[in-house]
């Protein structure tokens, strides 16, 4: 099989830098430049390997049961969880999901700053934060995330079409990156990016989340939307030329896991398979929640990328 397919694209994917080292004004041990691709994944040049993010949360009440069951003993707070993740699973970044803000009438905003600071102190990896999802508390939540992470070039999520102002404001005020999520729809993705730009967010601070359906439960829509976003970008549409992030969290709650005798194994397979497919569709960051997924996903991605490089050089 030969991956060489001559095609001249007029566009390329915007580069976005996430995390900030000491030299860059932060405290991370590493920062990453994502994006910059000039072709489809695996075509001609294989593009950059996606980053792997391990996702933790500050309130496990709404975390998938199968993930809670798989959590190692002795983790009592997000900071120790993040430290465990970095040390044991060796992901490229940590994603902190502020699930505590999803409780009805959540108002303990002071603890958000403390949580973010404690996780930043516990890990040296670049941090992605998933904040609230309720316009009533967004403003309070995102200003604290932004402030607590000032200088660290966090990736802040999630902006949506009808509630993006607070995330955008935090990204602008405290120099962070923003995740723009739309429900598996290329036009809405474009529109949201335009809205964010009008707010004043530069293109190189936006990451598209096209929303990741679970494999077998709508992932094909995600795949084709990601493909179309990448095609549009390569054909010169600047409004869609941002790198993409994919979080296959939906794949941890599928019926097959609930009904299985070995739910953890099925969950890992499901999450990994969805993430691999997202990588092939062009995701620059893959976010997984099951601790068992990280290492096999790493193996799969390495094999895919190294494998494809071999193919290209063999063919050339």
């Amino acid at each position, binding site marked *: 099989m030969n991956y060489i397919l001559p095609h001249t694209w007029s566009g390329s994917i915007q580069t976005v830098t996430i995390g900030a080292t000491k030299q860059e004004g932060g405290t991370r041990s590493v920062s990453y430049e994502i994006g910059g691709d000039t072709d489809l994944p695996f075509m001609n040049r294989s593009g950059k390997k996606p980053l792997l993010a391990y996702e933790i949360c500050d309130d496990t009440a709404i975390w998938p049961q199968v993930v809670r069951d798989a959590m190692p003993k002795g983790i009592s707070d997000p900071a120790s969880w993040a430290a465990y993740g970095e040390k044991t699973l060796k992901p490229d970044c940590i994603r902190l999901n502020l699930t505590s803000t999803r409780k009805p009438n959540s108002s303990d905003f002071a603890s958000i700053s403390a949580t973010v600071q404690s996780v930043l102190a516990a890990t040296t990896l670049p941090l992605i934060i998933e904040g609230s999802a309720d316009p009533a508390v*967004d403003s309070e939540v995102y*200003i604290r995330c932004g402030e607590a992470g000032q200088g660290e070039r966090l990736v802040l999520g999630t902006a949506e079409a009808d509630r993006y102002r607070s995330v*955008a*404001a935090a990204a602008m*005020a405290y120099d962070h990156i923003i995740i723009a999520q739309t429900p598996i729809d*290329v036009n809405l993705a474009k529109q949201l990016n335009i809205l964010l730009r009008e707010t*004043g967010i530069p293109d190189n601070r936006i990451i598209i989340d096209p929303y990741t359906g679970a494999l077998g439960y709508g992932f094909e829509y995600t795949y084709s939307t990601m493909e*179309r976003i990448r095609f549009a970008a390569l054909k010169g549409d600047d409004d869609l030329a941002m790198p993409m992030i994919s979080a296959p969290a939906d794949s941890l709650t599928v019926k097959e896991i609930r009904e299985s005798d070995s739910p953890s194994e099925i969950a890992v397979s499901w999450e990994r398979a969805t993430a691999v497919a997202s990588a092939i569709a062009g995701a620059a960051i893959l976010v997984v929640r099951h601790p068992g997924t990280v290492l096999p996903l790493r193996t799969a991605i390495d094999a895919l990328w190294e494998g494809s490089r071999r193919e290209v050089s063999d063919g050339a």
Partner: protein
Amino acid sequence: MIQELSNTKGEMMTEIPSAIIRGREKISGTISALTGDLAFPETAYHLPITYAVTGREVHTADAARTAYEDSDKNMLIGAEIVVAEQEREISEATGYTGFIEDALIRKLGYSLVDGSILGLCLILGTPPSADTAAAICRELQEKLMLTFLCGPVITVLTDSGVKVDLSLRLIPLGATSIKGVHFADILARVAMMFGGVPPGDVSRLITYAAERAKAFVIVFPSLSDEEIAFVDALRILNIPIIQVGGYEGGEWLLSDPQTAVSKGMELRGITVRVTAIPIPMACSPAFEGKSIRKEEMFVEFGGGRSPAFELLVTRPHGEVTDGKVTLIGPDVDQIPEGSAVPLGIIIEVAGKQMKSDYEPVLERRIHNFINYGEGSWHVAQRDLIWVRITKEAVANNLKITDLGKLLAARFRMDFESLLDAVQVTLITDKDAVTRALADAEAIYQKRDERIAGLKDEDVSLYYSCILCQTFAPNHVCIITPERPALCGAITWLDGRTAYEISPSGANQPVEKGTLLNAVSGEYEGVNRFVRKASHGEIQRCVLYSIMDAPMTCCGCFEAIAMILPETNGVMVVTREFRGDTPFGMTFSTLAGTIGGGAQTPGFIGISKSYLTSDRFLQAEGGIQRVVWMPAHLKEEIRVKMGESFHEKGFDTLFSIIADETDAVTLDELLTYLESVSHPALSMPSLI
């Protein structure tokens, strides 16, 4: 006017232009004597105004003096230097903020971008009474503005028990009005922090202040000359200065204290967002799809059972009271259950950006909004509407006036940037409906004429529609005055309006560019646009042709036109027509074949009204090519065109176009066409 005021009330008047001259001299004098270092605490922006305007990082009196002289004695810079000197030792007395550090500005800027603060207001001077000042502050608080206070107004407020604090969105900057400088240094820092305005780039600073920083100033009497010179200089940043008396001459706007806030907000285009609608019925797009059956219905309006209509019109600003709802006629408590009642819905709107061209587009939203109500339902448009309210809603105490509240609130919410005020009149009295309906009809007709007279060559821009790309990824509609979108729902005017209302939306302007072929309607600009918008899939889009690179079809078309090679003509079949066609396929089978964004020569999806356009199939000879269409479509066109049906000679032509009563199979059709000597038979060959 001002002179009269001073005569009748006996107030002291300050003459602004001469005060400015004196103020400039005093400030220049102070600056010329300055020595030593100058700096504000906890900021990376040095003297922020000076830094923003000149790009210089000033830390000493000497450097400040040079910057001031080099800026041609810019009064904002001058006042900043004077204040920096005053605050050299101690920032401000207790109870005042003085210079505000960067960290806090970041938070304030956050709230501005975030929308939790809608705009900024600076109040300075000595108010005529504590009540006047308190009322202005309260209004600003209620309207989500962030208010900065300086000078005697602060003590007047606090002495009368008004609390001032950042948490209350009332920020006491300093004991003297010159401390209003901090308002300007905040604007300068916000522009540099959030607006990416480089230090020293005055034109970008001014643009940012004009477009993004929604600020205005309210001035009470008794400012000193220096303070007047400074305040007046804020006009450079396009900040309106509103005085409530005490000054004459100059460029400050005079207002009553009661209307100062609304005047400032109007000048800056700041509108308050409505969040909850106070009616006893849930209201959300989630309910849009429900219908109300007869058994559930308490009352209905229109739908052929009673006269009913809806109308949205633009009025001048002063004539619309925002949120006002008027009911003329009985409400539900005086209406028997199960009855059909007349209804007039008249929505009057005002807004600086609103244009009468937008009226029909906004009017169509009445349909959505009434359907948002859990217990209300709406179909059709204009004088064809049909509205129902459920028994359950009425049992929950819903009144007809609540529909008015719902409409007023939703219009304000959804068209926040467009509308400043919306008032609704509902009419259930039969005679009043009849009278108002006559006026509405006249307006409908005027609107129709506006688009009817418009020709493709009259405009330089067409509009695109890619709404359907969600399911037909490469489909692009090009909408021209004489060719509406193939769904029939969007005319050229609607496309233009949609673009103006939502410049990043699915309708974009299309430059026609060089005309390549006038007859077939091919433009170089249209081709270029379609190529890009179809992601490179479609290379050409010929607007008036069915054979040569015709427009793509999504799936929403009202009708399909397709060639019947054997007849050398074209048949048209509508979505409503369920029967077989001479081609041997029904509409739905055909639709499935040509939809999905494909370009299929020989087949086009069209709106019904495109059929009667002069541009219809212009490349292939126009409507003379049509050999077959359903009978209901002929009748619909005849009714809709009225007089012009005869004027255009359609009565003769349509009488020889076959319908399902003349021919169902191709053989029957051929026989029929020959029997009537249909013109298509002798036209140039289609293929």
